């Protein structure tokens, strides 16, 4: 009974009712989830609007003012359609695949620190956790492609498996270079390291905190990470798994209504996660770009969201004007360009850190 009481306290406790010692875990998780899903709804709209603007179109502009409710209208449309399951499909796996995609994408958000101390779970191996969860993302695609029991989805799934495994390697190496500088796998520490050391401190202008962030000293890795993130989330120009000119819709051909929507949702949550990760690793997380009064009064969460929006804008622009890669070019880029660059950079970074004694050393100096 004591166990149930502790568990209930941990999960549902509300301090002001005298029931618990802290705000229950469930409320925090729900708050994060709702905010995230709302954010994703508008990110989806922004993606379409930016794409349209590049092509001098208006984009969705009918539902609500400037089409602001378009995503919710789409949600309604998907939910009220009839889900079709192909006769030859493996029913369980077919329905499990979109669920896996959404659950994995959402669960990675548990460790993301939106502002100082705002992470749902501030674990010591945060970055490794995100890396592990995002490496599982490929299962949604493979399961969906296989269970459809159809040719195009299967080809899409095979491509996706090869592509995501390849680019994970370079993402892993990029993360290692950042970890060498920080000396900790905790995401909060990674941001704190960008606050307490860096180029601005070295130059004696600590207010110019955007110079402190890792995008500057690790610029090649920033670029490699950005491009690998595009490939990892199957975004154009690397959307080979669903290349519509070759595979109709790739692994999603046989999906419709709610299962399709879940694939879509999972994909966009993963994209926003990658944007958040770029922000944390290279753009100083919740830190203000200039550490001077009007800017550092703004709450950290606002800066975090603004930076995520900026990175997503870059994602959207790439989608709008870069043509799709051919499959062999994609593999070449991953294995013959990014892998050697990132391995060399690990050696260079480790060498420089060892020689000069720079680095945050997990905050232990």
């Amino acid at each position, binding site marked *: 009974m004591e166990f149930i009481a502790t568990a209930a306290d941990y999960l549902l406790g509300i301090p002001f009712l005298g029931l618990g010692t802290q705000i229950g875990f469930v409320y925090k998780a729900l708050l994060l989830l709702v905010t995230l899903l709302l954010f994703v709804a508008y990110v989806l709209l922004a993606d379409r609007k930016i794409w349209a603007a590049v092509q001098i179109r208006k984009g969705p502009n009918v539902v609500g003012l400037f089409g602001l409710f378009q995503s919710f209208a789409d949600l309604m449309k998907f939910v009220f359609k009839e889900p079709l399951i192909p006769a030859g499909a493996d029913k369980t796996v077919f329905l499990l695949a979109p669920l896996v995609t959404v659950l994995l994408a959402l669960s990675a958000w548990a460790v993301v620190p939106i502002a100082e101390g705002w992470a749902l779970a501030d674990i010591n*191996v945060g970055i*490794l956790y995100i890396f*592990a969860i995002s490496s*599982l993302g490929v299962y949604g695609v493979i399961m969906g492609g296989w269970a459809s029991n159809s040719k195009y989805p299967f080809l899409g799934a095979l491509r996706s498996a090869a592509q995501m495994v390849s680019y994970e390697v370079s993402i892993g190496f990029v993360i290692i270079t950042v970890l060498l500088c920080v000396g900790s796998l905790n995401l909060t520490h990674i941001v704190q390291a960008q606050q307490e050391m860096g180029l601005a401190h070295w130059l004696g202008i600590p207010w110019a905190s955007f110079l402190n962030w890792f995008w500057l000293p690790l610029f090649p890795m920033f670029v490699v990470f950005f491009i690998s993130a595009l490939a990892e989330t199957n975004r154009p120009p690397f959307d080979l798994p669903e290349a519509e000119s070759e595979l109709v819709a790739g692994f999603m051909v046989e999906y419709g209504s709610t299962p399709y929507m879940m694939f879509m949702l999972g994909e966009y949550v993963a994209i926003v996660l990658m944007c958040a990760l770029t922000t944390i690793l290279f753009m100083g997380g919740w830190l203000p770009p200039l550490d001077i009064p009007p800017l550092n009064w703004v709450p950290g969460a606002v800066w975090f969201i603004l930076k995520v929006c900026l990175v997503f804008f870059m994602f959207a622009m790439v989608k709008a004007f870069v043509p799709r890669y051919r499959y062999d070019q994609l593999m*070449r880029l991953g294995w013959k360009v990014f892998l050697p660059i990132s391995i060399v950079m690990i050696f260079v970074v480790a060498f420089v850190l060892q020689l000069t004694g720079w680095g945050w050393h997990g905050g232990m100096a």
Partner: protein
Amino acid sequence: MTLPLFFFYIFSAICIASALMVIASRNPVHSVLFLILAFVNAAGIFMLAGAEFLALILIVVYVGAVAVLFLFVVMMLDVDFAELGKGMLQYMPIAIVVGIIFGLELLMVAGSWFITPEVAGGSVLPIDAGVENTRALGQVIYTRYVYLFEAAGIVLLVAMIGAIVLTLRHKPGVRRQDIATQVGRRPKDAVEVVKVESGKGI
């Protein structure tokens, strides 16, 4: 019962059940999927034991990379289940005998498992509770066991090179894309401007 204990029972129950389903399910792809579930739950148990680094590495390496390739291969196989079940009865007696011997051996080993108190007490490297997992591992691997660690790395490298050598074929006469030549091409190498007199052709 505390919360971690509760989760331990959940993880281990799912782990054992999915491990059973790996050998019980008829479809090989389902087997691999259950294997992945077993891996993930084993990682959960590692996590509860406080080995967070090991748990996540288990997921990254085994589930994220090895099992993906495994699934990849199994999906491509065209397995005929009727053919597969044919020899079942014929081989059953041998399988039962081997199974019984193996099971007994396992029981004997597990029954006589014993660590002398001196060994357990004077453990080679005492665990420092204040140091986080990743740091503790690094401090041991890169100092005390650095030669063994490097040797393991070399063994893996040799295996990798071996696999590449075995599968690499140089086919003559295959046209390949050479990005450097493509980019380095000048207009005057590729285009010839010819003044053609009317009615003559080239």
